């Protein structure tokens, strides 16, 4: 009962238990954070808008993305993955979600930003349904903790519309 091996085993087991409890407590403490992020996305320009050879519509646009996501950060936050997606409906698809831009915010100091960019991923429809199409832009964030449970949420922004004609 009092051999070295038994004592080492007891200490190691207790250490792992404490470590697991600390991880759980760190992750659980994130539940008490009430974030209040703000975001705004403007479409400054439709750079080009064409039907591809395979029949799908594609759009390239310039976005002005500003957001303040500082309130998402807690002491257990490693990074926040943020992205802007276009959402719309077509006769064929009940839901289309296309990511246009994404970024990784490594710390609270970088969480308030304004970015002027073209869409990072190609905005391609499954079909030829984009002329005059109304769509929403949603800014999503995924909070990656140092350990434990991941959280995600989004802000939906409405009122965007694509041109009636190709250009």
């Amino acid at each position, binding site marked *: 009962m009092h051999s070295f091996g038994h004592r080492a085993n007891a200490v190691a087991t207790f250490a792992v238990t404490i470590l697991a409890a600390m991880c759980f407590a760190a992750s659980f403490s994130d539940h008490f954070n009430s974030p209040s992020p703000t975001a705004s996305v403007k479409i400054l320009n439709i750079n080009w808008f064409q039907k591809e050879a395979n029949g799908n519509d594609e759009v390239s646009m310039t976005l002005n993305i500003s957001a303040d996501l500082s309130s998402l950060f807690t002491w257990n936050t490693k990074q926040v993955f943020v*992205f802007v997606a276009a959402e719309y409906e077509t006769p064929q698809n009940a839901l289309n979600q296309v*990511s246009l831009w994404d970024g990784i915010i490594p710390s609270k100091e970088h969480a308030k930003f304004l970015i002027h960019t073209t869409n990072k991923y190609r905005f391609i429809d499954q079909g030829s349904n984009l002329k005059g199409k109304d769509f929403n832009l949603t800014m999503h964030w995924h909070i990656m903790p140092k350990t*434990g*449970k991941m959280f995600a949420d989004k802000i939906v922004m409405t009122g965007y519309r694509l041109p009636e004609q190709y250009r």
Partner: protein
Amino acid sequence: MGFIGDTIESIRSMQVRQVLAQIISLGMIVTSALIIWKGLIVVTGSESPVVVVLSGSMEPGFKRGDILFLHMSKDPIRTGEIVVFNVDGREIPIVHRVIKVHERQESAEVDILTKGDNNFGDDRLLYAHGQLWLQQHHIMGRAVGFLPYVGWVTIIMTEKPIIKYLLIGALGLLVITSKE
């Protein structure tokens, strides 16, 4: 006669109860681990509820050696979610983020495109030849939480089998020689 008698006496003198207790105890440990794993599979709805990150394609969010906890529910897949999927012809599942979703009107069919955060392009090069989209049946689960560093044990044992056998041998020896 003396030799045979000595051998029989030696066998009879073994602590039968102690050996049986040890065997049962070992069996309990193994079956407990199996029960926990199968229970996790049932609770999470995913055939592989815990996976180890093997590559750096999702850095800096996930690094090699992190353990991911998965969950597979009826909720539809949406952009931004980190999903684990199987590709036909590949043994090891891949953990990447969804960047495009197209969901049909009539059926529950869904087309999904994924990308690793640390990769330059999307995953079409990883999919089976000619495959442009993932469907629901390729998805094994979505990541809901993770622990850093814990998976290194698995990686080391997979990449250096000699260490695995040494470890198993040492544990076996420990069990055999322990007096309790």
